[in-house]
């Protein structure tokens, strides 16, 4: 039977889907199996889950994409974000040539002209205003190698610690939480724990939409064992509610009290693991050590009734949640921006960990306190690679003399080249740009002119400073303001390593040449280093692999040892979870316990867990005050505004035109409001309303829906034409310096 080309491709697509779930749909030869199509293993570029992706190429062009069936993370599944990966490779809006601003307009230029201008401006700025008058702002989407080169250039050679990255805006509080509680960043367990847990606690996470592959693992776990429970603490209903058994729909910003109330009930009703506490836990009020008894006394004020009133939920539900937590054999807590993007984000992270520590539900299959990350390499490049102003590669700190010496040796520079004090964190960096203190900025693979909070405060400064933007695409809100835009290679056009949420490092494969004159970001930075007179220490970087090999030296002997993960191995395996100290080590499932190659059996002396990153081997349970948001609602601004992502928001206004009959029209930017609030304020669906905060105002279409709780509104933040971040606050967590995007006070009225 002959089939048309279209039918053949449809059969091929269906067959590939069937194959993913272990079904042989078709006996016929399919396009997927065509010898002309070469498949290469790679990793998804979008969120921090780290899904395996297979890239199909024909004659050096990307022609197909599918999930990697052998990936232990996604087992062949892809969410819609990953599914879109290929298209940008071939997008005709890719930036193909350098652009230089001339007479107010960005014009095409040669690489020589562009780089020569960048180097001379940076040189001149440093000479006239000092090394701290320049900065680098990177990304959790850059490869580890790219961030490493930038770090080496700016911290080790230029001598400024003004090196930041956009993970400051999304996961710095998680870093602070892990560091203060466990003594070391990043989770104890992994995604595998999801497959064995009896209870999931989701806080501030719309897992179904933001991390669909993780969500699928939750669904699968729940289906396998119907007794598995899911509790959510979140101000908003989302598609994740489909699997939620108990939803504590809290008033935004007050959930610290709920976490303490849960702990209080767990203690009072005897669900604690006293042996684990005795062996592996210490207590602190954040300033000094306290006793277990002090902690129990501290908790007494957090009755279910107290927390219920503060958060606007039922006290009985808090009791139920605590009992489920206490009775479960294994609990996995998952959270994202709803916890991290908060004025008290670090503290809330601590309180998530507290629950695992007092119940001993950590460090074994099915039990973990697992922060989900939003970018593919925020963990790898920025957290592990040291791409923030206070860090050095390999979980080191600039303030630590020994760490500076170790890294300086690898970088072949005097230790004195590395400044001993942290540079400017993200908000401070853009404030310094706005004030003129920082005069030249290099921005790589990110779009701060859209993503910074309280945007109106920073835009003029970005216009005024000498701004270099290395990007794959143009225009973005940031490239529009740049003096020089450098075309960068995208995803499949470069080798690199991404480190995902679960400590897994994976190789991203180069399968096609960069479009136009685009260059790998590391190569551009090496060029800049050479032009600034530092070429000697960069000339051995002939490829990303060379950079990775040097980076591995920084990890040797550290808690995140990747010595056993050279390119040769990473190209073969589906990633490795550190610590992986030798070439034959399989990687580590759970840290701080038997099986972790760094676990000190002698010091542990029979204890199940020994937190070796802490001086006493004990993780810390914190008695933190339950402070609310920076900007609570009041009479003038009576609604709590939260911003975030929705699945639809990947669509833009330019695509809302001719939508085929089978799909709903893609919504434009809108504000969600609860029906009760809408009725009270006289707002109806599709009305245009003015949303105002103390920082700005936006006119938005109204969507009346019972997703947000009464008294709150929600705006997806992605449309450049409707920059939600003109409304958000740039008040930040004093520890992590992460801004409180998730809560501010607002008012709304019919426009």
């Amino acid at each position, binding site marked *: 039977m002959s089939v048309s*080309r*279209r039918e053949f*491709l*449809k059969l*091929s*697509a*269906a067959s*590939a*889907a*069937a194959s993913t*779930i272990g*079904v042989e*749909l078709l006996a016929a030869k399919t*396009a997927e199996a065509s010898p002309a199509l070469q498949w290469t293993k790679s990793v998804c570029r*979008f969120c921090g889950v780290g899904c395996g992706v297979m890239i199909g190429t*024909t004659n050096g*062009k990307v*022609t*197909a994409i599918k999930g990697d069936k052998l990936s232990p993370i996604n087992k062949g*599944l*892809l*969410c*819609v974000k990953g*599914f879109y990966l*290929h*298209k*940008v490779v*071939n*997008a*005709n*809006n890719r930036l193909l040539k350098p652009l230089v601003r001339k007479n107010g307009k960005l014009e095409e230029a040669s690489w020589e002209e562009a780089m020569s201008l960048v180097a001379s401006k940076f040189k001149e700025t440093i000479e006239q205003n000092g090394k701290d008058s320049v900065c680098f702002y990177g*990304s959790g989407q850059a490869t580890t190698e790219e961030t490493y080169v930038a770090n080496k250039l700016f911290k080790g050679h230029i001598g400024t610690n003004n090196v930041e990255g956009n993970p400051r805006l999304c996961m710095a509080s998680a870093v602070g939480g892990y560091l203060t509680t466990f003594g070391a960043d990043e989770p104890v367990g992994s995604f595998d724990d999801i497959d064995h847990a009896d209870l999931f606690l989701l806080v501030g996470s719309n897992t*179904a939409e933001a991390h*669909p592959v993780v*969500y*699928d693992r939750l*669904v699968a776990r729940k289906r396998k064992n119907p007794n598995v429970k899911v509790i959510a603490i979140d101000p908003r209903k989302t*598609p994740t509610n*489909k*699997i939620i058994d108990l939803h504590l729909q809290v008033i935004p910003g007050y959930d610290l009290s709920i976490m303490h109330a849960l702990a209080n009930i767990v203690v009072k009703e005897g669900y604690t693991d006293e042996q684990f506490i005795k062996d592996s836990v210490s207590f602190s009020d954040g300033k000094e050590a306290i006793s277990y008894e002090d902690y129990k006394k501290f908790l007494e004020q957090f009755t279910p009734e107290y927390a219920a009133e503060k958060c606007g939920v039922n006290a009985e539900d808090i009791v139920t949640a605590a009992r489920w937590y206490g009775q479960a054999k294994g609990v996995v807590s998952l959270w994202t921006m709803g916890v991290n993007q908060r004025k008290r984000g670090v503290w809330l992270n601590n309180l998530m960990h507290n629950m695992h520590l007092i119940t001993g539900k950590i460090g074994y299959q099915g039990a973990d306190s697992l922060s989900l990350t939003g970018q593919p390499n925020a963990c790898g490049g920025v957290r592990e690679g040291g791409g923030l102003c206070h860090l050095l590669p390999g979980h080191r700190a600039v303030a630590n003399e020994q760490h500076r010496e170790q890294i300086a040796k690898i970088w072949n520079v005097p230790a004195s080249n590395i400044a001993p004090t942290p540079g400017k964190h993200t908000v401070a960096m853009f404030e310094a740009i706005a004030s003129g203190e920082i005069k030249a900025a290099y921005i790589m693979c*990110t*779009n701060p002119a*859209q*993503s910074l909070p309280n945007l109106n405060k920073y835009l003029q400064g970005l216009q005024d400073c000498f701004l270099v933007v290395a990007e*794959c*695409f143009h225009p*973005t809100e940031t490239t529009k303001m740049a003096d020089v835009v450098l075309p960068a290679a995208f995803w499949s056009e470069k080798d690199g390593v991404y480190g995902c949420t679960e400590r897994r490092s994976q190789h991203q494969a180069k399968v096609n040449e960069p479009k136009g004159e685009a260059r790998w970001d590391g190569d551009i930075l090496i060029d800049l280093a050479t032009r600034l007179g530092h070429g000697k220490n960069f000339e051995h970087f002939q490829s990303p692999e060379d950079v990775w090999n040097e980076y591995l030296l920084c990890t040797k002997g550290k808690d995140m040892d990747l010595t056993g993960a050279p390119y040769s191995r990473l190209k073969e395996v589906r990633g490795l979870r550190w610590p992986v100290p030798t070439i034959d080590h399989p990687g580590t499932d759970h840290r701080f316990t038997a099986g972790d190659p760094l676990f000190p059996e002698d010091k542990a002396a029979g204890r199940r867990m020994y937190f070796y990153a802490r001086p006493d081997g004990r993780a810390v349970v914190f008695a933190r005050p339950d402070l609310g948001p920076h900007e609570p609602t009041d009479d003038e601004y009576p609604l709590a505004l939260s911003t975030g992502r929705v*699945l*639809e928001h*990947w*669509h*833009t206004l*330019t*695509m809302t035109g001719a*939508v*085929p*009959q*089978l*799909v709903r029209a*893609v919504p434009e930017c809108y504000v969600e409001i609860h029906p009760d609030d809408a009725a009270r304020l006289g707002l109806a669906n599709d009305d245009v309303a003015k949303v105002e905060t103390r920082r700005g105002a936006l006119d938005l279409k109204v969507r009346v829906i019972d997703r947000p709780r009464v008294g709150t509104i929600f705006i997806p933040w992605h449309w450049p034409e409707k920059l939600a971040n003109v409304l958000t606050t740039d008040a930040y967590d004093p520890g992590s310096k992460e801004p409180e995007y998730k809560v501010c006070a607002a008012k709304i009225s019919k426009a």
Partner: protein
Amino acid sequence: MFISSIIVKVNPGTAKEIEKEIKKMGALTSYGIHKDENIIIVAETEKLYEVKAICSQLMHNYKDVTGVFPTYLTSDNDELEEHMLEEEMEAH
């Protein structure tokens, strides 16, 4: 024209009903209900974002749909050309 296969995961006992609904949507072909009640469908769309809209619609409008996973994408052109920069920009 883009051709994409999608695995639709549903709650036990609901696959037949949901497959019926999917068939009504047009431009979608069902390739049946398979292991663990996974429904395999193939979408033919002029624009890639329509696939996303389909996924979104399935996830939001059907309470028994627990997951929607596009698994394979190809085009009846020789190369997967795409002109929607904005979506990638939003990823930043």
